[in-house]
Structure formats: C-alpha cells, structure tokens
C-alpha cells in the first residue's frame, strides 16, 4: 500500500539521465479536472524560476559600496554549485497562489523575489560560525566563507530591508493591488521571518533537537520551514485578491507543503540523496516508519486543501496538486533550469 510504495520510491531514488525530460504528471484526485494529465509542472516551474531570477537580478544592481552588493548577490542568486540551481520553492508557491485566483503574475513577482531575499538573509545568518558554522551551501562556499563573517552579518541585515523596498517599489499599486493589501503583504512577510516565525524555528533548532519528541520536532519544522511556505501562499493569495476563506485555505496548504517538503528531504538525506537542513530530524527522533506516516498525512492534508479550489478554478488548481506530488517524489531535477546571471 501507500507506505511501502513510498518507502521504495524514497529509498531507491530514480536518477534521471541528464537528458531526461520526464514529465511529472499531476495525479488527479477525485475532484481534479481530467485535464490534469497534461499539466507539465517542470515547464511551469522552469518558466517561473526564470522570471524570479531576472526579477532578483534586476533588484540587486552592482553599485557602491560594491563589496556589500556583491555579497548580497552571492547570497541570493544561483551559483554554479554542484547541487544545481536553487529550486525557488517559496516564490513559485507565491506566484502559483496568485495565478490560481486569477491574479496577474506581475502582481506577485515582486513579493516572490522578496520572499527569496528574506529566505536568503535568514540562511546567511543561519550559516554563520556562531550558528550552524556551515562552510558550504548549495554546493559552494557559504556567504561568510566567501566574504567574511562581518560582511555576511551586514549582507543579511541589508537583504531584509531590500525585500520590503522591492515589494513597495515594484508591486503594481494601488492598481490592481490596493495600498491596504500591500500593507498586509508587508506585515505577512515581516511576521514570517520574525520572532514567532522563521526566527523562532532557527532558535528552537539551535537546541540541537536530537532527543526531541514528535511534537517538538514537528514544531521546529513548522516554524523553520512551514511558516515561510505559509507566507508564500498567503502573499500570493492576498495579491491575487483572495477572500478570507480562500486565504485561510491557501495558508494551511502552504504550511503543509513546507513541512512536507522538508520532511521528504530528511528522509532522502537518510538514503544519501539529499541534505540535512535542520538539526531537528524526524527520522532521528521518530524513525523511518513514523516519518513516512507523517509524509502520507501531510500529503493528504495538502490535497484536501487544494481540492477546495478545484471546482471554482478548474485547471488552475493543477500546480497545487503537482507541488504535492513533486514534494514527495522529486520526479525531476531542475539542473540548469534557471537563468544564470
């Protein structure tokens, strides 16, 4: 049944050949439109990443003082590391939520880029010698290893405000995005990386979290990864003009997807096909069986949230379904998918 088949998928990962153009077809749930089989997540994701990369590239021009701007670009833009291009899951989710509701991509792209800046700022600080002391990230030296610890602290400090500046100066406002909505987006971004969001997750993760129970481990993952994904979906929802119920459903969907994605990474790292991004490991604390059980639960939850939109929005809900499948199966690599600056 589901558990054993999932186990096989995860522990014997498929290694696509470099030319593999395998389509990941969204698995149609009962409510999903029949056209789902034709949805090409890889193409959708690749085109979105290209848009996000060019948005980010333009948002961070090289200007004096060059050292800091160079460090900021290094932290955010993809390198030629062996792990390939960044997947940009937070911005992709943001744009997908906006487009689901019929909002224009241009309304969500600045917030999508901001999410990536905030995310990168947190990672730069998370990698510092006094923190995780990570010498590498995405297959190349981490920002402090390349630019020095002091410059890495400042690069993070500068990326946080740049995210807000970027949203304000590039989101089409007041039309179609009213100022009041823009303020809600700004507050949401700030909340997600603040002391009750991502920073709380980083704080909890500092403890090492090796001997934690399920609730504690899940809390670390929810704060450190779920909050960011919830924020992505919520920002996309607001920018696409969601009603309160739609926004709430997309929030739950985003949070679930964020934790699911991380959990699968955890499982994959145990099978030597991924990286540990958190000290709080479900696997280490709860074992493989429970981890896979949680994967199934989250997958079902996320699909339930996506189902709410199927009737009203038809095919536009397909990206939401396919993200769930992708999070679990990682059906393709995004190597070379992104525009390299």
């Amino acid at each position, binding site marked *: 049944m589901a558990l054993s088949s999932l186990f096989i998928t995860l522990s014997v990962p498929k290694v696509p050949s470099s030319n593999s153009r395998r389509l990941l077809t969204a698995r149609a749930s009962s409510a999903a439109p029949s056209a789902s089989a034709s949805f090409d997540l890889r193409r959708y994701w690749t085109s979105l990443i290209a848009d996000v990369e060019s948005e980010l590239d333009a948002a961070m021009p090289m*200007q*004096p*003082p060059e*050292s*800091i*701007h160079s460090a*900021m670009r290094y932290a955010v833009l993809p390198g030629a590391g062996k792990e390939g291009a960044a997947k940009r899951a937070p911005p992709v989710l943001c744009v997908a939520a906006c487009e689901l509701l019929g909002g224009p991509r241009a309304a969500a792209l600045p917030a999508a880029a901001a999410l990536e800046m905030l995310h990168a*700022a*947190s990672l730069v*600080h998370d990698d*510092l*010698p*006094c*923190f995780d002391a990570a010498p590498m990230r995405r297959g190349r030296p981490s920002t402090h290893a390349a630019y020095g*610890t*002091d*410059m890495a*602290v*400042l690069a*993070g*400090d*500068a990326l*946080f*405000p*740049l995210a*807000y*500046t970027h949203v*304000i*100066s590039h989101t089409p*406002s*007041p039309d179609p995005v*009213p*100022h*009041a909505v*823009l*303020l*809600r987006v*700004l*507050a949401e*971004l*700030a*909340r997600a*990386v*603040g*002391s*009750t*969001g991502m*920073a*709380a997750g*980083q*704080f*909890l993760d*500092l403890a090492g979290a090796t001997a934690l129970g399920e609730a504690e481990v899940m809390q670390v993952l929810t704060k450190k990864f779920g909050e960011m994904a919830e924020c992505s979906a919520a920002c996309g929802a607001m920018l696409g003009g969601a009603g309160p119920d739609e926004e709430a459903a997309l929030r739950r969907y985003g949070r679930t997807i964020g934790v699911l994605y991380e959990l699968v990474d955890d499982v994959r790292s145990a099978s030597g096909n991924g990286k540990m991004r958190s000290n709080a490991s479900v696997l280490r604390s709860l074992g493989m069986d429970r981890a896979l059980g949680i994967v199934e639960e989250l997958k079902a939850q996320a699909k339930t949230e996506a189902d709410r939109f199927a009737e009203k929005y038809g095919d536009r809900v397909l990206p939401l379904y396919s993200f769930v499948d992708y999070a679990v199966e990682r059906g393709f690599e995004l190597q070379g998918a992104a525009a390299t600056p």
Partner: protein
Amino acid sequence: MAFHFHPLASTRVHLSPIPFAAAAGAPSPSSSVAIVAHHHHHHHGRRRFSAIVATAAAASAAATTEFDFKAYMGERAVAVNRALDAAIPAGEPPAALHDAMRYALLAGGKRVRPALCLAACAVVGGPEAWAMPAAAAVEMVHTMSLVHDDLPCMDDDDLRRGKPTCHVVYGEPIAVLAGDALLSLSFHHMASVGSYPPDVDPERHPARVVRAIGELARCIGSEGLVAGQVVDLEMTGTSEPVPLERLEYIHLHKTAALLEASVVIGAIIGGGTDEQIERLRKYARSIGLLFQVVDDILDVTKSSEELGKTAGKDLASDKTTYPKLLGLDKSREFAEKLLSDAIEQLDCFDKEKAAPLLHLANYIAHRQN
C-alpha cells in the same frame, strides 16, 4: 521622489545652507535663531560653539522659556517605552528569544530617534499618536544595529550603557537572531493596521504608511545604514588617513540615515507636503552629521568622567576624526554651520510646533557626553 545618498560628490551640495529668503513667509532669521536659546548655556561657559545661540538669546527669550525640553523628552521616552514594551509578543514562545529582544530594546536610552519621529509628525500638523508605531520602529532598528554592531565579529563590545551586551548575556547566535527579529518586528509593527489609533484618515493613511516603510527600508539598507557600516569596516585597519569626503560618507550613512528615516517617516505619516518632507530630510541630515562631529570633539576635549566612557579613544585607536582632519577650531566652525543649516530648514514651519525639533538640534549640538 526619494532623496538618494550618493553620489558622494554631491554631499556638500545637500548640506549647503539655503538662504533665509528661500522660505517665503517664514519668520525673520533673528527670531528663528533666537528660539534656540537654551538655559543650559550659562552653565557650560562660553564655548565658541554656542556663540550663535548666545548672541541670539537676547532677541526673544519669550518663545523658549515656555518650552520645557527636558520634560518634553521625558514624556516622549515614557510613551515610547510603553509602546516598545507592548510591541514585543512577550507571552508567545520562544521565551528566551523574546527576552533577548526585550533586554536589548528596553535597556533605557534617551530615545532621540523616536522623539524626532514624533516631533516631525507634529510639526506638519499630524497627531503624535499617528507616528508612535513609526517611532517605535526606528528605535527597534537602532537597537538591532547596536546588537549586531557589538558582536565579536564586528566591534566586539562587552558593555553598552554600562550593561553587558546582548551576546554576552544570551550568546552570539541568539544575539544575531534577536537583531533579525527586531528588524522584522519594526516592519511588522509599522505595517500592521492594529498598531495605529482609530482616528487615522482611512483614505490617505495606507498609502502614507507604504511610503514611510519604503523610506525606512531604504535608509537602513545597503544604500543607507549598512553602506556606512561597510565603508567604515573597510576603513578600519588601513593605515592611510581617511579623506574628509569618505569620513562624511560614513557618518551620513551610519548615523544620519536613521535620523533621516525617523524624521521623514514621521512627517509622511503626519500628512506633510513633499516640500515639508524634503526640508525635514535636510534638517535630519545636518543634525546627523552634527551628531558625529560633536562626538569627535567631545572625545578630545572631555575627560572620561565627563563622558561616562573612555575619552581619547579615537586618538588611541588612530581613528580618523574631524579634529584630526580639520583641527579643533575648524571642527567647531563646521558644527556651528551644521546647526544653523538644520535650524534654517525649520523656518517655514509654525514656530511653536517647531520648538521640539529646534531644541533637539540644539541638544545634539550642545550635549556634554
């Protein structure tokens, strides 16, 4: 729109005085300068620095005697501290992270930046309460920059205001996170509808807050505060003397940028016109630079007891200062000029409403530590 810091070469132009005549309908020069008269001057002798104030004092003492600057600052500090205390989600976990934020944020201090923000809102005719979330935000940003500045990988300071620094008490990783969380909180607090009183103008308020957040973010990022820290960092450790233009760049970004943000966002939220906002921006840049020039002067002229910190530290560490580059007399002349430049920007405002900003400029110029 926004006034940009660079290019460096244009710095001088921004700081040059605007002729009194430029402010049509403004009070006469003598009366506007006169408001600066300050009862402290008699106690502190006759430094050349205060000459401009002393000579004007005779003209009209009436306008000032009614304004109690000390009481004004005391009341603002109490109100700001209350707002800061309420802004931190103390009840929510993780408790230690929120403790670290509170430790850094509620450690006292004169709250000069929030006072500037509130005064700027009032001078353009806005109720001070409208600007309180912005005033709290600039203090959060200021605190965050101090917490990160004190880290071992940066300035490596163990003490601040006589207390152990945040990383000494809570450890480095929590200090990094507390700083990041304060920065996020400042933007969250400013952007949240719930931070503002119910009497804000529902039509104009959201657009004003969006603009104000954009100003704050620009002033503290890689074109503002961080730019100053970076250039300062790059200067430290080099044996060559720092040219005047570079020194000014550092101070305009490291210190003046956040003062600029404080004043400008207060004025925006208070509903100021673009012309009023730009005048206040110039005012803030002048007093920001003034702040550092005075700091440099105090370091060479005061004893450690008078300063409450180690005097002569700049000389000992071979740091480039204004007295070193210009000499003490020229530094004092420069400070006088910056003060009068700042005051001139206030000419076009109602004299009574501008009194707090005048006294704040004066306070920055004449502080003794």
